[in-house]
């Protein structure tokens, strides 16, 4: 317990000490693309430092709700951003969808690929990694898709819950599970370790919204949101496999 209190105090203290920095809380699946965009944004805006806080969208929302010093929030689904909106945590006028993605099933590269959701329900597939639906948007899309296919109870029985979509990717890459649900952009990061078995049709399109946090007084926040929609940033996102919103 003490360890966690110390850790939390350190995070809060560093946030206060570096109040001039722009803090961006972004969905885990944006990690690589946003780091590159952050560097480019700093180059285009001398004197501004961007610090990122990557996690599943759910915990990012909880942190903001509890007063974490965040300026910009980018989530991997509309649901999480809607909750932020309802709790008046973001400025509604700044909200915009900036990329799309697709949900895929990945398997370890050296395994035969499963062909359909029905295959995942068979006994040959023993463990399936899925982001915890209450926390991870990718898990929420997965649950909705499996419920629609009538397979959720059978696959939930062999589900290994992960804290972010990147944990799912890691579990599959290490072959600790037989399959996992990630975004196509995640799968593209480890072509030698995982392969895409098939794309999962989702009920809702996977659209990423971004918005300025209501409590933020950092002028760079709106500039960052605008920058993410600009051609140079969109080019970076496209290079990592994200689609147009």
């Amino acid at each position, binding site marked *: 317990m003490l360890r966690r209190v110390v850790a939390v105090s350190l995070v809060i203290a560093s946030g206060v000490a570096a109040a001039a920095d722009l803090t961006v809380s972004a969905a885990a699946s944006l990690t690589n693309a946003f780091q590159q965009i952050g560097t480019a944004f700093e180059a285009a805006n001398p004197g501004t430092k961007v610090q990122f806080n990557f996690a599943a969208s759910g915990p990012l929302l909880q942190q903001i709700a509890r007063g974490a010093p965040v300026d910009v929030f980018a989530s991997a689904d509309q649901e999480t951003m809607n909750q932020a909106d309802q709790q008046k945590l973001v400025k509604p006028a700044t909200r915009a969808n900036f990329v799309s993605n697709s949900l895929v099933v990945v398997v370890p590269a050296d395994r035969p690929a499963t062909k359909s959701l029905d295959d995942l329900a068979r006994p040959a597939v023993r463990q399936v990694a899925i982001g915890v639906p209450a926390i991870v948007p990718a898990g929420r899309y997965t649950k909705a898709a499996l419920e629609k296919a009538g397979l959720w109870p059978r696959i939930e029985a062999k589900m290994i*819950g992960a804290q972010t979509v990147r944990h799912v990717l890691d579990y599959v890459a290490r072959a600790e599970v037989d399959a996992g649900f990630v975004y196509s952009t995640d799968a593209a990061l480890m072509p030698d370790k995982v392969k895409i078995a098939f794309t999962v049709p989702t009920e809702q399109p996977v659209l990423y919204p971004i918005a300025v946090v209501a409590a933020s007084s950092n002028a760079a926040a709106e500039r960052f949101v605008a920058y993410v929609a600009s051609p140079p940033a969109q080019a970076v996102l496209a290079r990592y496999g994200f689609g147009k919103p």
Partner: protein
Amino acid sequence: MASASLDAAWIALGLSLKVALWATALDLVLGVAAGFALARLRFPGRELVDSILLLPMVLPPTVLGYYLLVAVGRRGWLGGWLEGTLGIRLVFTWQGAVLAAAIVAFPFVCKSARAAFEGVDVQLEQAAHVLGLGKVAVFFRVTLPLAWRGILAGLLLAFARAFGEFGATLMVAGSIPGKTQTLSIAVYEAVQAGQDDLANLLVVLTSATCVAVLLLAGRIAPMRIPGRS
């Protein structure tokens, strides 16, 4: 919601106790053996071995978790062998959680056991030997009973550490409700998901259990907990 989260909390508590008890039992055997060896055997590099055995106490649990994941994962050297020859899987199982907890709690038993054995008067052992007891009998009938209170204090600390283990466990065993989701991991997940009702219930349960353990520890070994005189 209320009864469902109550059930979930009790299951997590039961699992935490099960994992901590198994881990402590494992540490009892290994820690006492290692502590005895360090106290009594003279060999080159003894202090280096002592430092290495102490590492789990100072290393971040995530580092231990990563070492473990690499070693006992399906593609790890040990994990591959375990699964291939014995059919044992540790990642994402409660046994994996026991292994993680046993490793982080090991130094508490080993260190206490070494100090306790070093405190045993060798002359008493020699006397027992002269009176006709064999080496094994001397250990179990003289040395161990004399060192027992010190070892017990170490065991209680090890149990407490294993009960609260979080980082290495999450990395190796994951967070599977009813299988590997211990109290500390259930709290983490409840907070992540914004389920404050469940989180409140879990932290109260955890705190109450810890107080009970400490009270029990005070009864069993009142004098030997380090930091209390």
